[in-house]
């Protein structure tokens, strides 16, 4: 099965140790996490993990079931890039003299929609946000000059067709399980044997 980028969105209780429980599911299977972000969600008190990995759909589906099995996880979704609005942020520290002497560096930054965050006489810090490729391209360009420091943030993503977690949480708070927690269709393709 083809590997591709999947973004896993996990809604959890905000308890200590959740990162360990969730990342352990990946590391145990020797799957590398490309980026991991934890943040509050649209629901007060519910935490949102955004995890980027490159795997086949079948592996990702199974990983999500293992994640949902954790007692303090409410729900795990997985999406391909075209199902998401997503961004990554990056910070660049560039020597001030390079910017001053070489005007095209500034043009370059403008072209990539980078903003100035800090200006000092020894260095300038720029910030940009966008898709991975855009950031990678700018990083490559700036790498030709003196890039003193670079850091890229984890991917954050909004699911295009999600109505948010408020309604879902209500179902979880009721004692009867919600009928739609089962999302498996009949699986009658029996040809491939999967090993994770």
């Amino acid at each position, binding site marked *: 099965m083809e590997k591709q980028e999947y973004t896993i969105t996990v809604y*959890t*209780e905000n308890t*200590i*140790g959740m990162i*360990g*429980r969730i990342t*352990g599911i990946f590391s*145990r299977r020797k799957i590398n996490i490309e980026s991991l972000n934890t943040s509050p969600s649209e629901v007060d008190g519910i935490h949102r993990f955004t995890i980027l990995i490159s795997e086949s759909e079948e592996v990702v*589906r*199974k990983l999500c*079931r*293992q994640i*949902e*099995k954790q*007692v*303090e*996880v*409410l729900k795990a979704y997985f999406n391909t890039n075209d199902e998401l609005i997503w961004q990554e942020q990056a910070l660049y520290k560039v020597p001030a003299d390079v910017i001053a002497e070489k005007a095209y560096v500034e043009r370059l930054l403008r072209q990539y929609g980078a903003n100035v965050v800090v200006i000092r006489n020894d260095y300038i810090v720029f910030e940009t946000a966008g898709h991975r490729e855009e950031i990678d391209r700018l990083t490559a360009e700036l790498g030709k000059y003196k890039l003193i420091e670079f850091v890229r943030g984890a991917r954050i993503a909004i699911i295009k067709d999600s109505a948010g977690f408020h309604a879902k*949480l209500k179902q*979880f*708070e009721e*004692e*009867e*399980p*919600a*009928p739609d*927690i*089962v999302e*498996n269709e*009949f*699986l*009658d*393709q*029996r040809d*491939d*044997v*999967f*090993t*994770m």
Partner: protein
Amino acid sequence: MSTLEKTETLEATTIAANTQISGSQAVLEALIHEGVDTVFGYPGGAIMPIYDALYDYNDKLKHILVRHEQGGIHAAQGYARTSGRVGVAFATSGPGATNLVTGLADAMIDSNPVVCITGQVFASLLGTDAFQETDVINITTPVTKWNYQVTDATEIPSVLAKAFYIAKTGRPGPVLIDITKNAQLQLFDYEGYNKCNHVRSYRPAPIVRKEYVEEAARIINEAKKPFVLFGQGIILGKAEEEFKRFIEKSGFPAAATVMGLSALPTDHPLHVGMLGMHGNYAPNVMTNECDVLIAIGMRFDDRVTGRLDKYAKQAKIVHLDIDPAEIDKNVKAAVPVWGDCKETLPMLTALLDKIDHTAWLQQFRELEKEEIKEVINEELNPTTDIMTMGEVIRELNELTGGDAVIVTDVGQHQMVACRYAKYNQSKSSVTSGGLGTMGFGLPAAIGAWYGTPDRDVIAIIGDGGIQMTIQELGTIMQFGAKVKILILNNEFLGMVRQWQQLFHDKRYSFVNITSPDFVAVAKGYYIDGNKVTERKDLKSALKTMLEHDGSYLLEVMVGKENNVFPMVAQGTSVSEIRLK
């Protein structure tokens, strides 16, 4: 004591709400409210306040002082397996807690409901490398269904309520609660104990989908060659009767996984044996012959499936399980019947057509005859002077009639016991299935006896495994658990030796294990015992063991280089199972 009596006495013996109590007292109050009667544990510095409180609960809680924390948790597992209730183990911080890890991993993979309570250093010392401090929460995360560290006593009642609820509901599993010493000592206003029956982020069981049940019934009704595989889910779901009605309606042949043993009596006419690497011939071969495979409460372990890409490719698979993560994990299901089998099996049974499958069942019986001829006859009634493990189990079956609880350790004796032991009732087989923990047998048998003290509990253990946890003889000595210990001694680490013989050119690398005089060791612990080296003494020795009032150790010398067959060699298909 009946449940009713228990409820009545509960009021009188528990601490009333709105009283000041310590965290330690709250722990013990929680156990009593959860109906716990036995705790297996070992004290130490960081759990001393709980042990101090226990001093006053002596009449309400039986505490069994084990000889090693690993023994404590295995005993709690054994207790859970025979009683169907939650097993409880106490350990102190640091080494006490890390000694639990093997048992937690074992309980996790075999879905045993166990609650472990560990002491921890004072909250102010956390992370300072304090004496006997270890990060038990991080260490145990992958081997617990849930774990939690308590640093404030006010949390104790609700956290323990949650612990018991999570351990025993859905797919059961081990829970560890780590309590810092300050929380154990802290006094707080006790508001009484409320049992937990809902955790918002936790679904014990997925909702049953009627359309899946209907689709499953349609496929099963169309089957010409349906074959049922059953696992421990039947026992954990207390669905033995529902299961029997399901297979009996149309006469489906049914085979057990190791963990499913005793869910259906072994002499039931539809029971066609055990699956897996050392399972029976017919069920392994027929897995690749059937047209519909109905898997109930089992997880398609690699020891059951053999080579996956050659496993039941011709069959439509109907998989019933309470854990959604098990469906499609190893084997793709045509229909996933999510839910508690206690609920789904009757729904499915109601939709079944009565179809006669006698001819199909007969095909299993034909293969069984072949296995009897090639393997079983010689194993159970050997023609040489050398005793076999199988004949010991046969003699045992004749004496117990199949009423005993059989606890095993891990290795050749385990496979032989699982293959040949007779079980009349559920919860009669206690073995380390998923983790294969050598050293499990003796402590698990102690716990198994406390879980069902009216039954005969026989621990069948090899000469290797017994030496891993032999110190638990001290627990038996001190507390009088009536465990019959049957050591099948082949003077080898037999299973590894068998593999070295078959797959490593007979290069016997460190499998030649010497043993102490086991009978003398038992005697040192004031446990009676005997050793049998000749067949003529076997029956009477087993009889003496069973009739002995109290624990007893019997060592039987069996063939040194006997192998367990049939065998599905690793990397081969179940249908390539070899008879020799």
